[in-house]
Each structure stands twice: as structure tokens, then as C-alpha cells.
């Protein structure tokens, strides 16, 4: 079964996310674009995932519990979970490990929490763009404990990517899937990447509604569940 996906979308909880990025707007845009599965991956928080799951249930779209963690080395990694319970336990650890630096809304933007009717039900004061206290290796192990999978984000970008920050993909963590922002840049990265080793996914990293993926990228799956997506990302080639 061909599954159209976009597993990297920011809601208005991410300071850089547009305030139009509400659960209903995101899910309905994904619906219009013909996507089967999405993930709301805010920076160091999963607090808008549950309302998104509730909205998506009505549209027949799957939301995989996800989060974009900033490691201690300032590498952005996407973490996905089979169940919302595992995801929320993991997100609590990450959130608690962020330093107590207050967000400055006028510079970074608001960090909004929604319910499933797009009502603003709260704001997060702690700045979510800080890095967690865990190294990439520690995050990899934590994700494993919660039965999830770690995918390095936009490895071709010049900031906050595993290649720009560390210079290579460490061999002590068993990464099977990587995310790339611009598929045209793959060719330039052959050396750093040994890309034949990895499954490659292409997400939007959308901060605005219009940027969400069209139904152009597919996964081939037998069943459509969060677990089957996580297993696919764990599986590699």
C-alpha cells in the first residue's frame, strides 16, 4: 500500500511556526493535499500532538506521535513513537531537561497550545529552541527505551543538522533512516553520507500551511499504523 507522508510539520507551538499552524488547519491542509500520514514535530515538545490526533481521527489521517529534539550538540533529530503514551513520557524528559530560559515572544514568536477546536488553551513560557541536556547518543538510547525511532533531521542544511554540526553520522548509533530537505543536494553528499546505507525520507519541515508536502513522497506499507511507520523508519533499506 502506498502511503503519502509528511513527518515533519511544526505547529504554532514552535516559536518559528506560523500562528495559522493549528491542529485543524494542519490536518485539513494535509487532507486537501492527499496525505495519509503526518507528524507534528515541534521543538522539544509534543503538547499539540494529542489535539492533532483527535482532529485527524475525524479525517481518516494518521498522526504519528513525533517531536524534533535539539541534542546537547545542537543537532536536530526527529523522534517518532508507536503510542502517544510512550511519546508523552519521552517528551516530559526532554522538556524537563531544557534550561529555564524564558521565551521572548517578540523575537522568537509565540509558543501556543491548542485544543481540538483550535482554541488557544495555553502558552509555554520556557524557550523551546534551547537544547536539551542529552547528547545525540543519549537521545538515541532514550528513544529506544520508549520503543521509538530517531531520524536525523534535514541533514543537508547548514545549521542544526548532524552533518553541519558533527561533520559525520556517528558510527556508535544505529541510524537507519535520515531526512533530507533538498533531494537535489544528495549527490553532493556522497562522501559524508555513504548514503547507500540509509533509507531517505523527504519531509516539508513546514512552518507555514502552504509548505506542507504534496502527495509526492510515499512509503510502501502493509498496514497504516504509527507502529508500522516507526518500524519502517527503524528498518532501513
Amino acid at each position, binding site marked *: 500500500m502506498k502511503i503519502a507522508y509528511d513527518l515533519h510539520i511544526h505547529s504554532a507551538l514552535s516559536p518559528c511556526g506560523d500562528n495559522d499552524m493549528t491542529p485543524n488547519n494542519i490536518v485539513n491542509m494535509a487532507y486537501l493535499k492527499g496525505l495519509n500520514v503526518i507528524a507534528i514535530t515541534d521543538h522539544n515538545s509534543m503538547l499539540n500532538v494529542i489535539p492533532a490526533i483527535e482532529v485527524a481521527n475525524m479525517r481518516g489521517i494518521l498522526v504519528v506521535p513525533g517531536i524534533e529534539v*535539539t541534542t*546537547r*550538540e*545542537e543537532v536536530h533529530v526527529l523522534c517518532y513513537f508507536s503510542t502517544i503514551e510512550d511519546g508523552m513520557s519521552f517528551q516530559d524528559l526532554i522538556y524537563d531537561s531544557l*534550561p529555564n*530560559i524564558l521565551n*521572548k515572544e517578540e*523575537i*522568537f514568536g509565540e509558543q501556543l497550545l491548542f485544543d481540538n477546536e483550535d482554541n488557544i488553551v495555553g502558552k509555554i513560557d520556557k524557550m523551546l*529552541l*534551547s*537544547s536539551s541536556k542529552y547528547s545525540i547518543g543519549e537521545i538515541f538510547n532514550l528513544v529506544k527505551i520508549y520503543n521509538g525511532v530517531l531520524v536525523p533531521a534535514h541533514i543537508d542544511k*547548514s*545549521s542544526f543538522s548532524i552533518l553541519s554540526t558533527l561533520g559525520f553520522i556517528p558510527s556508535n548509533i544505529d541510524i537507519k533512516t535520515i531526512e533530507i530537505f533538498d533531494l537535489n543536494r544528495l549527490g553532493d553528499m556522497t562522501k559524508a553520507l555513504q548514503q547507500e546505507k540509509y533509507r531517505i525520507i523527504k519531509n516539508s519541515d513546514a512552518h507555514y500551511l502552504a509548505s506542507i508536502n504534496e502527495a509526492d513522497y510515499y512509503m510502501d506499507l502493509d498496514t497504516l499504523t504509527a507502529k508500522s511507520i516507526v518500524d519502517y523508519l527503524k528498518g532501513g533499506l
Partner: protein
Amino acid sequence: MKLSSIADKLNLEIVTGPELEEKEVEGVYIGDLLSIVMSKAQQNFLWITIQTHINIVAVATLVDLAGIIIVEGMDIEKDAVEKAREVGIPLFKSKLSAYDIACKLKEIGI
């Protein structure tokens, strides 16, 4: 010491320098991990880094730094320069290393 005087003495390339005359530098911080800079650097410090993306401007604004010196002749991304101009964070460039710039700052009494 005034920022303009430092720029002059260290022969820094001014990328964008609004309010250069008024800024008084009270210390220096060197670092490339934004989260560390955010928690350790202090108001009116001059920040030396090799990072060049827009988030350095956000960090500098958050901490209220006097300015940023980008070393090793790194090319600064266009949106970072635009943002720095917009929010009034002076940006400088130097071909020297962070160590060499730090030594020179020490020599002139910072």
C-alpha cells in the same frame, strides 16, 4: 571601550553596524553552541563565533549583546545580515581565528 573603537583597532570588517558609536563593550564571550552562549554570555558582551545563521542574531538580541564578531572569514547568511540590521545588532567579520581575535582584544585592554 566603545564598539567603534574596537572595530577600528582590530581592523574588523563592518557587515552591519547600527548604533555602533553608542555601544559600550563590557566583556567578551567565545562559543559556537547557541544554548551555551544564551546561558553564559552577558549583556553588552562582544560575542566571537563561527556560526553564521540567523539564530545568532536571535541569541544576541535575547542576551542583549553588544555585537558579534564572525571569525575565520566565514560567509554570513543573507537573512542573518538582514535580521541584524533590522534589530540593531552590529555584525563584524574577521579572517583571523577566535584565538587571535581574543588575543588582540586582550592587547587593547578588553
